[in-house]
């Protein structure tokens, strides 16, 4: 990634303009041909700097207003298998294993999104039945203090 790539990311990370020729203005700003703007974005996707180029959805506006971080205490030797099952649920948007501590036993995290808290609870219950893991907590977000994408 060079300086031009960095500038390109900074110019686009808040969203491209909704105009017929959205990359034209960026090309002008960077003083490179428009085709190069596109080539550079493609290269950044290829190299993994950009995870994807596309629309970010405000799921709250879509009515998916209940979001729960569901934390699970999964035996270490079952994490691989259980994580794969959780990831298979459509309501689970993110699923990670994280470090655990003596005062915090939970090691698997599944972000569950639904229209209601009740639906989140049903999904967690279904996951519990599918995996046999019964030590879990649903931590709903009671307040959103901040939400932005990853920025540079």
């Amino acid at each position, binding site marked *: 990634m060079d300086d031009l790539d960095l500038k390109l990311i900074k110019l686009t990370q808040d969203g491209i303009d*909704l105009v017929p020729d959205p990359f034209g203005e960026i090309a002008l700003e960077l003083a490179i041909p428009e085709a190069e703007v596109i080539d550079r974005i493609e290269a950044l996707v290829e190299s993994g700097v950009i995870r994807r180029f596309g629309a970010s959805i*405000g799921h709250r506006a879509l009515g998916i207003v209940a979001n729960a971080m569901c934390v699970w205490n999964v035996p270490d030797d079952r994490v*691989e298998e259980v994580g794969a099952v959780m990831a298979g649920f459509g309501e689970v948007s993110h699923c990670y294993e*994280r470090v655990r501590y003596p005062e*915090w036993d939970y090691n698997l995290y599944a972000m569950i999104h639904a229209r209601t808290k009740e639906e989140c609870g049903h999904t967690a219950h279904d996951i519990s039945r599918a995996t046999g893991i019964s030590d879990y907590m649903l931590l709903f977000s009671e307040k959103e203090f901040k939400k932005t994408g990853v920025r540079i």
Partner: protein
Amino acid sequence: MTMTQELELGDTDRQLINLIQLDFPLDLHPFRTIGDQIGISEQEVIDHLKRLTDIGIIRRIGPILNTKGIGGSSTLIAVRVPEDAIDSVASWINGFDEVSHNYLRPGAYNIWFTVSASSKERLHEMISEIKAFGYPFLELPVTRLFKIGVKFEV
């Protein structure tokens, strides 16, 4: 969601939302390309996307960055904060540009935030600052990744 909001989404809106999360065309006239794919004009695509942006369904169209891909380091931190200090601690945390998400959640550890720092060093620096703040906290870096949300089907 209320029913009225739900009814605001037509078939074209749904098609657009499902299409442009993953397959946004990288070409000179992306909205024309999208229009060709679903059988509407370039201007209609733009009009629909403008409306979806206005009502908050589309936040932006752009690059979704990969913290590791840009050489950065990320983690999740849970802080245990007394009730009456929640708002002030949360806004202090929000003051870091590197904080991408910050939520109040129930339980002893009540403020949960994600950090996406430009480097490991910067992350360590932030963690020391958080430590200096004096509230008990858990630092919870990812050890294995099973799923990272890419698309909302509507």
